[in-house]
């Protein structure tokens, strides 16, 4: 991993995923949201009645709940000006040759097929509302591992799906979870049987192409006892002058002794509202790890959560946020200890530059009777200039005395002494700054697989150079 912090020599600082394809879809809903549109989505997908009713109920929750008053500024979202469902193709490819040429070209430019050949156990590619390509290695399939989109999960594994769907994040959990529950499409359904360890990552890639698009993927991961899986998601979108909305729901069940690692590299263009609910439940001696990297978007509100349900459960969140020009990253974590002898750790690193704002918002809750809980929260913020901003909102609710809690928060700037030291060794001011920033995020980047670590450092460098959204 020694080379992960190397300052790579790359081109100019522009958001390089901002291109878009001409729209040529088989179905595009009208703008806006109504019972008719929700019913139509359900009908087009050929869903059972319970799912249609679930969606309609969720729509009611969505409509009846006010916008959150906390976090970021959501007043710019015009819910009537968004396309809630866009089907790009009729079928789903099992090979890239089956994917329409223009979409394949897009994913080629994003490097997905190349990555798949090199180091992935399975790949899912979602374009607008539907997963248009999907593959999983044969040996995993034969061990009973399921990796498909959630629509396929519902269709082909109806009992398993229904048993867990919406149980970790109920549709009335919050306004955006309700919205997702009403119009969800695509995402991933992952099932890992007991004792099966998926040694190399599964990756899902999410691409928004159309203007004023809403993407609402839904992900459900079930790790049976003693299993392991690492799921990685990446996302990009074209740069438009009007805003898009991405609102996902991710539910994860980590059973006894299992371990799930969920890595996100979020790199939406700067016109995307990214409002995501992610939550997991970890049972006896299980481990849940969220590695959450947020670079792009206009506003991100995302607080991956672990509910520690039984003794021995362990939760960890490692998060990086980069807030550049016109961006607000309101990110953090939630750890809810519902059992004694559970432990959790949150490490958050944020960088603000060009007037961007990064906020850490976290909740640590220990319920009464949960003795011997250990938790450590650490948030470090790096401010790159005077006009940028960082805030910390750590909420701590402890109802039990016999616990061990640590909390530490720092705000720092790149110091003159560090810069001078590096420059005295021949590094230019930019190179020296990049090296210090890479060092700052290294504790998290080193947890990423090599290929992602290199990509992450490259993306941070592009942001540091001032990519304009």
């Amino acid at each position, binding site marked *: 991993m*020694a*080379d992960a*912090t*190397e*300052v790579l020599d790359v081109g100019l600082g522009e958001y390089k995923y901002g291109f878009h394809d001409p729209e040529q879809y088989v179905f595009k809903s009208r703008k806006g949201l109504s019972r008719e549109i929700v019913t139509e989505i359900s009908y087009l997908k050929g869903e059972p009645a319970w799912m249609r009713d679930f969606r309609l109920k969720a729509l009611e929750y969505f409509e009846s709940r006010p916008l959150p008053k906390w976090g970021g500024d959501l007043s710019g979202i015009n819910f009537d000006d968004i396309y809630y469902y866009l089907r790009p193709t009729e079928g789903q490819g099992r090979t890239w040759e089956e994917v329409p040429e223009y979409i394949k070209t897009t994913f080629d430019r994003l490097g997905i097929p190349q990555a798949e050949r090199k180091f992935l156990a399975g790949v899912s590619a979602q374009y607008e509302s539907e997963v248009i390509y999907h593959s999983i290695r044969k040996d995993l399939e034969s061990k009973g591992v399921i990796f498909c989109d959630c629509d396929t999960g519902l269709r082909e594994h109806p009992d398993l799906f229904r048993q867990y769907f919406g149980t970790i994040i109920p549709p009335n959990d919050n306004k955006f979870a309700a919205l997702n529950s009403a119009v969800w499409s695509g995402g991933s359904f992952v099932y890992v049987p007991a004792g099966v360890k998926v040694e190399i990552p599964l990756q899902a890639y999410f691409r928004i192409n159309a203007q004023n698009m809403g993407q609402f993927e839904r992900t459900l991961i079930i790790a049976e006892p003693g299993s392991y899986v690492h799921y990685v998601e990446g996302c990009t979108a074209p740069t438009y002058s009007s805003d898009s909305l991405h609102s996902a729901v991710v539910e994860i069940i980590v059973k006894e002794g299992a371990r799930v690692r969920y890595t996100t590299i979020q790199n939406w263009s700067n016109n995307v509202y990214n409002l995501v609910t992610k939550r997991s439940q970890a049972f006896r001696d299980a481990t849940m790890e969220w590695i959450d990297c947020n670079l792009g978007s206009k506003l991100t509100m995302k607080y991956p959560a672990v509910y520690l349900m039984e003794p021995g459960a362990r939760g960890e969140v490692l998060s990086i946020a980069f807030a550049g020009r016109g961006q607000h990253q309101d990110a953090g974590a939630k750890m809810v200890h519902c059992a004694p002898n559970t432990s959790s750790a949150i490490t958050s690193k944020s960088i603000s530059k060009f007037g961007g704002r990064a906020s850490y918002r976290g909740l640590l809750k220990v319920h009464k009777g949960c003795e011997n809980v250990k938790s450590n929260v650490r948030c470090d913020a790096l401010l790159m200039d005077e006009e940028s901003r960082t805030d910390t909102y750590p909420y701590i609710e402890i109802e039990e005395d016999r616990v061990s809690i640590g909390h530490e928060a720092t705000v720092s700037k790149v*110091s*003159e*002494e*560090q810069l*001078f*030291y*590096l*420059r*005295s*060794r*021949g*590094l*230019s*001011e930019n*190179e*020296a700054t990049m*090296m*210090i920033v*890479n*060092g*700052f*995020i*290294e*504790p998290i980047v080193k947890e990423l697989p090599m290929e992602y670590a290199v990509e992450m450092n490259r993306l941070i460098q592009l942001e540091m150079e001032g990519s304009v959204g």
Partner: protein
Amino acid sequence: MAETAELVIQDLHVSVEGREILKGVNLTVPTGEVHALMGPNGSGKSTLAYTLMGHPKYEVTQGQVLFKGEDILELEPDERARRGVFLAFQYPTAIPGVSLANFLRMSLKSIRGTDMPILEFRKLVKEKMALLKMDDSFFGRYVNDGFSGGEKKRAEILQMALLQPQIAIMDETDSGLDIDALRTVSEGVNALRGPNLGILIITHYQRILNYIKPDFVHILVDGRIVRSGQQDLVETLEARGYDWIINEALNPQGV
């Protein structure tokens, strides 16, 4: 004809936050020679070191510093480094999260202007590390982060060995070193001595000069060089301390 990498400091005046620290320093370090600059606390030794490397806090109000015939005072620190100026810091700064290996590779690339294949690079660094009795674990450690005093100083000399400067300023390299570390570091420096390297050793104590024998010795008092000589001057200082020379410098008529 080979250019000579001579360092020539002429009438150098330097202020920090409006206060004049150096009040007209004149000093020449020809290539291939080792000069020691000694002086009591507060005489301006470290100010000279930082000024030569270009720290933004130090304001040159008068004079010039020529290196290979070029006035380097207008150059940025990295430009000076690329021309062959090196400063071994008294207090090397920690860069958390950046491995020594990455840092050295980037630095070497910047100084040489070309990248070096990773295997060749590792071999080169290992060679130099062996010289300084540093084990391979240093590769992966973060730059100066949690290093002991001795480790920091050895890492400084390692960089000097790797970057092959033509003028090296060593700022209180002996401070904080026990006798074994001092010997190791000194042996490292001695191995680098040669016709293409000028060295300016800045020190309060004569201790390091028992190991690295200087060709010339200069005494800095209150921002000026008040006396120059050879090894015998070090011995006089050793025997009599700084007081007599301070008195002599500040009260020239009183002798």
